[in-house]
């Protein structure tokens, strides 16, 4: 059974100590001061909000612990990523980037600095889909992109291995796996669901949502990617047109098929 990961602000550490955690702060020195050596084993990663200064204190602290940098305004903030490049000496670093106008540059620089990327993809409009398509092409084919870009990366791996993948899990938005704890210590659903009222069985949310979409005859009914997506792109606006996202998924599946064929050819030829 997979344990739930709690995304908590650093000052809620005392209440959640001992559970699987992601701890967030906009003050790196607070993370260093408050996280004890015994906490590190339960930490999935630490999240640095607002691109804070003073990350020198993290350089040799908890070496190997993953760090996520949160870009609130990718178009404005992306050049500042250079200030965090040295963290890669001792930490895996991922950048969380909302898919909104200007995000492409942030992804480009993140990849160029060897940061992994997690796209907060939401329900992108047609222009953003075009940007995502260009980005996906770079991810698949450009040798200058050497680090994972999520959700592309996990989807590609899943398609390659014919293994089930779950977009809600990839995006860290499945309440069965992740809970968000707000600044007051209140447990909420993760990501885009955080404003939603806490129901009786939050761990059932994704199953229930997917079932509801199928029952109601949504676009999902005959979508070839529903098993991976489970209605992710129908939240919060249920009438969101998934045609663009389906194209991206199809591109990923085709790339996976080509990659499998390459692997098979290489294996048979060796």
């Amino acid at each position, binding site marked *: 059974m997979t344990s739930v990961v709690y995304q908590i602000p650093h000052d809620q550490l005392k209440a959640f100590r001992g559970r699987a955690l992601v701890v967030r702060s906009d003050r790196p020195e607070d993370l260093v001061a408050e996280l004890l050596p015994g906490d590190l084993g339960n930490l*999935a*990663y630490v999240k640095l909000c607002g691109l804070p200064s003073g990350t*020198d204190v993290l*350089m*040799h602290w908890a070496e*190997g612990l*993953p760090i996520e940098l949160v870009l609130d305004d990718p178009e404005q903030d*992306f*050049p500042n990523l*250079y200030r965090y*490049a*040295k963290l*890669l*000496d*001792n930490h*895996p*670093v*991922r950048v969380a980037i909302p898919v909104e106008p200007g995000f492409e*540059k942030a992804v*480009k*620089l993140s*990849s*160029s*600095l*060897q*940061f*992994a990327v*997690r796209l907060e993809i939401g329900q992108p409009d047609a222009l953003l889909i075009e940007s995502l398509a260009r980005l996906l092409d*770079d*991810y*698949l*084919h*450009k*040798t*200058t*992109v*050497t*680090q*994972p870009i*999520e959700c592309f*990366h*996990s989807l*590609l*791996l*899943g398609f*390659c*291995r014919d*293994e089930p*993948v779950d977009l809600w*899990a*990839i*995006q860290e938005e499945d309440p069965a796996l992740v809970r968000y704890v707000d600044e007051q210590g209140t447990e909420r659903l993760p990501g885009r669901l955080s404003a939603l009222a806490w129901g009786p069985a939050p761990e059932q949310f994704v199953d229930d949502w997917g079932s509801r979409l199928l029952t109601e005859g949504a676009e999902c009914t005959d979508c070839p990617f529903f098993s991976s997506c489970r209605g992710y792109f129908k939240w919060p606006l249920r009438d969101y047109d998934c045609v663009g996202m389906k194209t991206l998924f199809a591109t990923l599946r085709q*790339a996976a098929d*080509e*990659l499998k064929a*390459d*692997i098979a*050819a*290489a294996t048979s*030829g060796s």
Partner: protein
Amino acid sequence: MINGNHLSLVLLSTNQCNAACDYCFEDKTRDRLSLERLQLIVGRVLDHMDEHEIGALTINWQGGEAMLLSPRWYREAFVWIGEAAEKRAKRVEHGLQTNMLAYTPEWDAVIAEMFGNSLSTSLDYPNLHRKVSGRGPDHYDALWGRKVHMARAAGIDVKVISVLNQGTLEIGAQRFYEHLVDELGITDFQINTPFPGGSDNAAKQNLSLDVVELSRFHCELADIWLERGLHRDVRIGPFDQLLNWFMDRDTCLPCIWGKNCADDLIAIDARGNVAQCDCWVTSYPDHVFGNIIECDSLSKLLRDSPARRQFSERPVMLMQGDCIDCDYLALCHGGCPVRTYSMGYHLFEKDPYCHLYKAMFGHMQRRATEVMRSWSQPLSATVGHGQADTAGGSTDNGGAHARAS
């Protein structure tokens, strides 16, 4: 702040030189490091390393001309630095950049012990600018050739840096390669682009090269190397490292293409002046970070220096220009500050050799793909190298972080 796992220090043991090369970017003085001053400097460097938990130091010894101090001086420096570093559990490696004019067999023991029996020297072909005072380039070449021959006979590995000039472009890549590899027997060299660093003179005003011709030369030399040198273990920088990069191998690109050279490197001259690198430390007083002799903390000096802040900020500022749109941002990051500045541009502009770099990157990318295809590696030819290891990755959403390590 320089705070990672490793610090590179370019240390000028003397600001004095026994050559009088027209295009030298350094402004020479007669200053030499005494052992006492060296101990003070290295002590403060080690203090900085302690403060920032930096475990490893590489000291690249240069001048002026580094061999103007005696082998005995280096031997004593080596012992003292080794003992001081060991007390603080730091690892130190040493490199030597020398014009070799003062080389004698008396150097062999310290070169073996301190520098791993290897050194780096410089030679241009044709030589237009390297000379000793009152003599011409031919005299320099003959003297240099004798010294290199002696050093090689003693078993020393001699690497060469070669700065290109108009004459190099005129003789062409084929002749250049033949001279260095076939005639001089040099099997490990790096080609550098010229820049008019330091105080102005007539030679520096004529250093600029047509960037299209320069690009053609680089691509032709790369092809000659791939055809004739690669399989004979000849290494030519930066082609060898670019090939590695595009073949997803361990790569050490030259400092001009680092993410931010201010994060990794400083230079200290024989007066104790601290600057970004050897190209700045004697030549541009306005860009000196401070003096390590006069300041009791290198960390404080680096932290408080407005000049250093400019270097730190350069890549950030460059993102306001067109570098962010470049396919090769991951390799170049806007290029070299001193090439930019010395060629008349603001520090916050990209390297004027941009066109050359793009041409070279594109060429080496194509050639790397061809090399891989010739080795029947269909995976690499199909997708980017970040995605070619699907057999060993992870499908969970922590996979990205796992791979990033």
